[in-house]
């Protein structure tokens, strides 16, 4: 083991910022991070063992305990559940002879849930030793179980098992055709850096991650900082359940994304950039590395790019399973080899980002659009969309519709149009922007996609009339409990309290005051949390409570109060130990 770690350490240039990369390698090799590994690593990197432990414990795909030669994770997104995930998970567990969340006795295989793996258009999905699997079915599970029982190494499994489709259903300005390699950069250098920034400004491009900050302004702020060591970071930590567009963009349009990063670097004067790729997209890693190598060969990256005196290179850093790392300052912490805990702001990343140097963090789609704008000019982009939301938006459409996949629309497109295009019928409502976004009802389908109306990072989950809203609300609330980083009190404790209170109501233990109590916790979590995760964690409840109060009311009992836990069940251990079955050994949940 020592040799292996030493090798990884050297491969990662002896840097503690690469801690996450090294730990990923150790996990892949040994399927856990042992105490010995921690000691060796702490000595090599000259960091405290506690820093390593806290990183291991923070990320979902790193573990202090042995997880088996085959580590299986099943995507727990609502979209997976809508495709019958639960019964398949049970089938999987039964076939493997292991309980969900556990390691099998012989140590061969473990099975657990994980947050949405970004395959909502082709679920139920999962990961095996980090590699994405899609369209799980009983025959597919049989095949996988047999390969595991025969201990066939994952590298030797049929490629079919790991096939990921792109499902591009509708293209517009950005997706119709990828720009030719280097063309945006050539144009940038030809027209000048300042002029290109002016074009981006003219385009009105706003960040595509969801928050919608003006891109040109962000780049300009960063370029004006005194500190000249600057960084460009592409946020490919696409973790919002229901979104998967960045996966497709990186599979088909990576050149253009990298080109966008490179011209950003030229404009802001950055020498180094990172693609922070979510762990769930490990399957894209080597392909992306090859594209970077190709761009270096073609003088589109590296020293003296296109002989214009610009030096810039891009490194891919993989995450290790943490939704919060999509928040830009948490992402930066993660890039530095730490737990992804959002920083206090100010200072903002454009002032103090990676290694406390000015850093531009943008979404994959933003860089893609920036490259296009550099080529076709800002006006051509601004001609599309609306005044406040120029250009197009790429949506990830999943749930109850005929054609799940990627759709590109000019901003301002109505929900009705989108539903018609993707073949959605009998629609109850749509989760727009994922759990952190908004649930809209079928009374609102004339609303439009745009920052001025329905802002979205791209997640678009359709629910038909047969679905129970409370199932999705519960799934989303659980998601936030699992993904809260735990830094601040309102989110750490509040998300768990939300879950308790919601479960109480949904499970039928609620009474008159319980909805008020639920709203009270919602407001606390929303208004007092440290970052966007906590501030939006109550949205699934708040947006459905606002639209469907009767759905919640129906769950309530007409009594003044009921315990939030199962009273009779809490007598069960004593009943068993005393071996009693008389009437006094039972309790009614509510007084007669």
């Amino acid at each position, binding site marked *: 083991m020592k040799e292996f770690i030493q090798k990884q350490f050297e491969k990662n240039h002896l840097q503690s910022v690469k801690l996450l990369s090294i730990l990923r390698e150790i996990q892949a090799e040994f399927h856990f991070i042992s*105490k010995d590994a921690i*000691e060796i690593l702490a000595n090599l990197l000259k960091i*405290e*063992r*506690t*820093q390593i*432990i*806290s990183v291991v*414990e*923070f990320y979902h795909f790193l573990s202090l305990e042995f997880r088996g030669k085959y580590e299986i994770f099943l995507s727990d997104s609502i979209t997976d559940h809508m495709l019958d995930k639960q019964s398949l998970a049970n089938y999987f567990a039964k076939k493997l002879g292991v309980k969900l969340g556990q390691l099998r006795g012989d140590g061969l295989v473990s099975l657990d849930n994980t947050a949405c793996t970004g395959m909502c258009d082709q679920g139920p999905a999962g990961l095996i030793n980090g590699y994405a699997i899609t369209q799980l079915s009983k025959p597919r599970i049989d095949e996988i179980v047999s390969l595991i029982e025969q201990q066939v190494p994952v590298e030797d499994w049929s490629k079919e098992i790991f096939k990921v489709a792109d499902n591009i259903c509708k293209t517009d300005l950005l997706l119709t055709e990828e720009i030719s390699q280097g063309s945006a950069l050539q144009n940038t250098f030809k027209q000048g850096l300042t002029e290109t920034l002016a074009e981006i400004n003219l385009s009105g491009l706003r960040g595509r991650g969801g928050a919608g900050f003006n891109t040109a302004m962000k780049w300009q702020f960063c370029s004006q900082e005194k500190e000249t060591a600057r960084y460009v970071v592409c946020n490919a930590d696409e973790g919002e359940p229901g979104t998967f567009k960045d996966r497709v963009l990186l599979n088909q349009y990576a050149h253009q994304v990298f080109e966008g990063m490179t011209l950003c670097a030229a404009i802001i004067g950055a020498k180094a950039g990172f693609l922070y790729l979510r762990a769930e997209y490990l399957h894209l890693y080597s392909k992306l590395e090859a594209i970077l190598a190709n761009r270096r060969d073609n003088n589109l990256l590296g020293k003296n790019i296109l002989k214009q005196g610009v030096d810039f290179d891009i490194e891919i850093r993989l995450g290790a399973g*943490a939704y919060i790392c999509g928040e830009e300052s948490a992402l930066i912490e993660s890039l530095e080899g730490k*737990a992804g805990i959002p920083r*206090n702001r*100010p200072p903002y990343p454009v002032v103090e980002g990676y290694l406390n140097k000015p850093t531009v963090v943008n979404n994959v789609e933003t860089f893609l659009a920036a490259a296009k704008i550099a080529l076709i000019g800002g006006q051509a982009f601004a001609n599309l969309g609306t005044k406040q939301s120029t250009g197009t938006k790429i949506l990830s459409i999943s749930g109850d519709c005929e054609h799940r996949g990627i759709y590109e629309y000019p901003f301002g497109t109505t929900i009705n149009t989108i539903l018609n295009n993707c073949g959605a019928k009998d629609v109850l409502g749509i989760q727009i922007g994922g759990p952190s976004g908004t649930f809209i009802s079928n009374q609102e389908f004339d609303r439009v996609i745009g920052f001025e109306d329905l802002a979205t990072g791209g997640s678009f989950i359709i629910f038909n009339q047969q679905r129970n809203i409370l199932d999705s609300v519960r799934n989303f609330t659980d998601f936030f*409990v*699992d*993904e*809260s*980083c*735990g*830094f*601040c*009190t*309102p989110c*750490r*404790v*509040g*998300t*768990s*309290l939300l879950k*308790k209170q919601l479960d109480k109501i949904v499970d039928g233990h609620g009474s008159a005051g319980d909805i008020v109590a639920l709203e*009270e*916790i919602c407001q*606390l979590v929303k*208004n*007092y*949390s*440290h970052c966007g995760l906590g501030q939006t964690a109550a949205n699934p409840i708040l947006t459905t409570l606002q639209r469907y109060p009767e759905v919640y009311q129906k769950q309530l009992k007409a009594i003044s109060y009921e315990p*939030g*836990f199962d009273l009779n069940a809490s007598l069960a251990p004593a009943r068993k130990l005393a071996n009693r079955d008389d009437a006094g050994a039972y309790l009614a949940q509510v007084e007669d």
Partner: protein
Amino acid sequence: MSETITIDGKEIPFKAGQTIIEAATAAGVYIPHLCHKPGYKPHGSCKLCTVNVNGRRCSACTFPAATGQAILNKTQELEDNRRKITQMLFVEGNHFCPSCEKTGNCQLQGVAYYLAMKDNHFPHFFANRELDASHPDLLIDHNRCIFCNLCVRASQEKDGKNVFAISGRGINKRLIINSKTGLLKDSDIEVNDCAVQVCPTGAILEKRKGYSTPIGQRIYDTQQIDQVSLTQETVYE
């Protein structure tokens, strides 16, 4: 003319680089807090010091004071919600004051008293947390840890060590100890370390020191935490 902010209508001067809470403390205005301590790097996690700055909620311990800020601090809404955040801390851990050596001198209690908290309001988690009594002179009761991170910072910033870290994520957060065994006895902590003294609750305690002050003479028996805090903390000015 020096620059000023207003807190609840009162004009307060500040120096460049000061946070809102630093300016407030210097001017004798108390803003409830637990993870903040003058002289320590601001952390911003407990959220008790949340104030309303020009209509926007901010953590006073991390947010820089700036000219033109009209700040609301002691409003009914903020005090109510601070009480609820404190109640969150009480249900998250296992805080049985009558059996805690720190009782009467505990800042968590002090803040709760100040906010007139009479019950824990929320359902209790009754979390299963450990006790580390391995050290001959010190004790860690994880039941009482509120993840304020002060011991982590004290050990790094004041003691020049690195005895503590906060690990885990979400509701499973935990304080970990930097020793091969994970036990306090094998770490390089010493009784007089700031990391020991700084704990606002009874999570880190000196052994054989409990209940030494009679009831009625303990810190928060006689004074409210705002007075205690302002007296102690303006020393750092």
